[in-house]
Every structure is written in structure tokens, then in C-alpha cells.
């Protein structure tokens, strides 16, 4: 299958692009791969040495698990695909330390206080509050982060939004009809404009007699990542995982 991808917007965590020449089934495959298949790094087990805070170990661990970590797919394997067969080795897990004591004033522990062994991996945001400590309370723990997939746990869902819709195209002599349009629309010249620049108002962006139709094989994709990847990388990883699985299927059928 051949298709064209044209970027409209992209600034790290968000991306918007147009895919031309694809089918709805394919585009939906990419969307689902982003949600469920692209592995992300997240804290998976926690060894609590000390926790005198008012929050239970289990709640604290869940909060740690939900913190997005930047993911390095080159350096790490999924535990089930690792050569150690899920035993746990430096090829599939990193250890994360947290050691905070509130001495004589209220302290909030932030995701930035996590110390990850590998400098390639760090919390995607430093400002996520994890627990409040009152004076003399302390938390000391060692956690293990591993790669995991969105289909197994929501903490590993790298895409917080992945959605597509048909591209709208302006046509001459369409006789108006639409007053308000959201999202991206292709103009008569073939450019793609963001309707939010015109507050969605058709009369401001187009001439009066312009009408609109959907383009059957073009899709506008909008992607937002949780910070474990840049949005663009997320899309290419999803496409890669899709093609890997297609190859696997072809191999299985061939044998």
C-alpha cells in the first residue's frame, strides 16, 4: 500500500497530519497500535523500605506507576522478549530510587525527586505531585521500571489521544450549506487550513458559494502523547509495530 503523509502541525507532544491514499481499516490499525501496542516505560514493581506517610504503599505504588517515563526502545526489550526470559536483567529493567524525608516542614514529593539509574530514562514531567509529607514523615523505596504495552495496563498507554477523521475539501459552486466546520479543511488551492484560526466560521475562511465534501481516502490524524515519546516518534513506532505483525502473519501463513 502506498500513501502520502503531510505534516500540518507538530510540537513535541502533539502532532496533526494528513494521510492520503489509505483505507479506514489501515488508519484505524495505526490508531489502535498507538493506544495498545507501542511499548512505554513505567514503574512495575516497588520495594517499599519505609513509608510513614498517610498514603498506603499500594496507592503510592500505583501513583508511581502512572508517572510517564521517557522511553528508550533501543536500549530496552520487553521483559517477555528479553534474552533473560522475564527474569529481569539490565536489558529489560531499570531501577528507580526515591528517598525523601520531611524534616520539620510540610514537603511534597514530586516526580522530579525520582532518581533513575539510567540517564536516558527520566520522568517525562518533573512536577507531578506524588505524596504530601508532614514533618518527620519519610518515604524510602526502590522501584523497577519495565517496558509494557497499553493493552496490558493503562499506565503503558503512550497516546493520550489518537483520533482521525475524513479530510474535508472545499468545492466550487457547492452552494454553501455549512456555517461552522471544525478541524482541518482543504482549500480550493489544495492547502490544508486549521479552521480554529477562523474560530470555525466558514464565511470567514471561504467564499460564499463554496461547498464541502469529504475526501474518501484522506484522513486527518491528531495525536497527543503522554510524554513517553514525541508524538511523531509514537506514530512511526505504531506503523512499525503494525508492519511487524503483518510480516509475522505472512510468515505464519507461509509455513
Amino acid at each position, binding site marked *: 500500500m502506498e500513501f502520502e503523509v503531510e505534516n500540518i502541525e507538530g510540537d513535541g507532544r502533539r502532532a496533526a497530519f494528513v494521510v492520503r491514499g489509505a483505507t479506514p481499516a489501515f488508519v484505524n490499525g495505526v490508531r489502535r497500535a498507538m493506544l495498545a501496542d507501542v511499548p512505554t516505560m513505567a514503574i512495575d514493581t516497588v520495594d517499599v523500605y519505609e513509608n510513614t506517610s*498517610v*498514603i498506603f504503599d499500594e*496507592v503510592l505504588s500505583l*501513583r508511581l506507576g*502512572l*508517572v*510517564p517515563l521517557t522511553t528508550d526502545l533501543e536500549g530496552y526489550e520487553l521483559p517477555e522478549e528479553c534474552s533473560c526470559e522475564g527474569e529481569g536483567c539490565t536489558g529489560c529493567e531499570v531501577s528507580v530510587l526515591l528517598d525523601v524525608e520531611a524534616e520539620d516542614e510540610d514537603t511534597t514529593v514530586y*516526580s522530579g525527586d525520582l532518581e533513575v539509574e539510567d540517564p536516558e530514562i527520566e520522568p*517525562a*514531567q*518533573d*512536577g*507531578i*505531585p*506524588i*505524596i*504530601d509529607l*508532614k514533618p518527620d514523615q519519610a518515604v524510602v523505596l526502590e522501584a523497577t521500571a519495565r517496558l509494557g504495552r497499553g493493552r496490558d495496563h*493503562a*499506565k503503558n*498507554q503512550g497516546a*493520550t*489521544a489518537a483520533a482521525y477523521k475524513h479530510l474535508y475539501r472545499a468545492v466550487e459552486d457547492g452552494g454553501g450549506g455549512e456555517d461552522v466546520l471544525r478541524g482541518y479543511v482543504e482549500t480550493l488551492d489544495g492547502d490544508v487550513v486549521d479552521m480554529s484560526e477562523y474560530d470555525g466560521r466558514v464565511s470567514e475562511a471561504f467564499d460564499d458559494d463554496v461547498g464541502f465534501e469529504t475526501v474518501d481516502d484522506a484522513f486527518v490524524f491528531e495525536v*497527543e502523547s*503522554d*510524554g513517553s515519546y514525541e508524538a511523531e516518534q509514537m506514530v512511526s513506532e505504531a506503523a512499525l509495530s503494525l508492519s511487524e505483525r503483518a510480516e509475522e502473519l505472512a510468515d505464519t501463513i507461509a509455513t
Partner: protein
Amino acid sequence: MMVPVRCFTCGKPVAAEYEEYVERVDEGEDEEEVLDDLDVDRYCCRRMLVSHQELVDTVAPYQ
């Protein structure tokens, strides 16, 4: 107790925005404008911040 780290519905990490949100709303800014400004766009994520009640101080004396 503590602000949820991620939005329950879509998974966007919202907790990091909570402190700024509370601070700015307390200063009298409009909630809607603050949320827009913090890039918390979807209503699933917005309700996470808007409806949160901080309880750690209430529970603290009970260990």
C-alpha cells in the same frame, strides 16, 4: 486524597497542572481560561482538576 496522576478516561497526565490551577483560580482568574491556558482541552481531563478535593491535611492526624 492526592490529585490523580492521569485523567481516568484518556490517560493524559494532569497532576502536574493542579498546583498552578489552584493557585491561579484562588487569585481570581476564570477557571475556563486557566484550563485552556494549561492545555487541558478535553472535558474528561478538565473534570479531573475541577472536581478534585485535597484531603491529605484532613487525614494527616490519623496517621
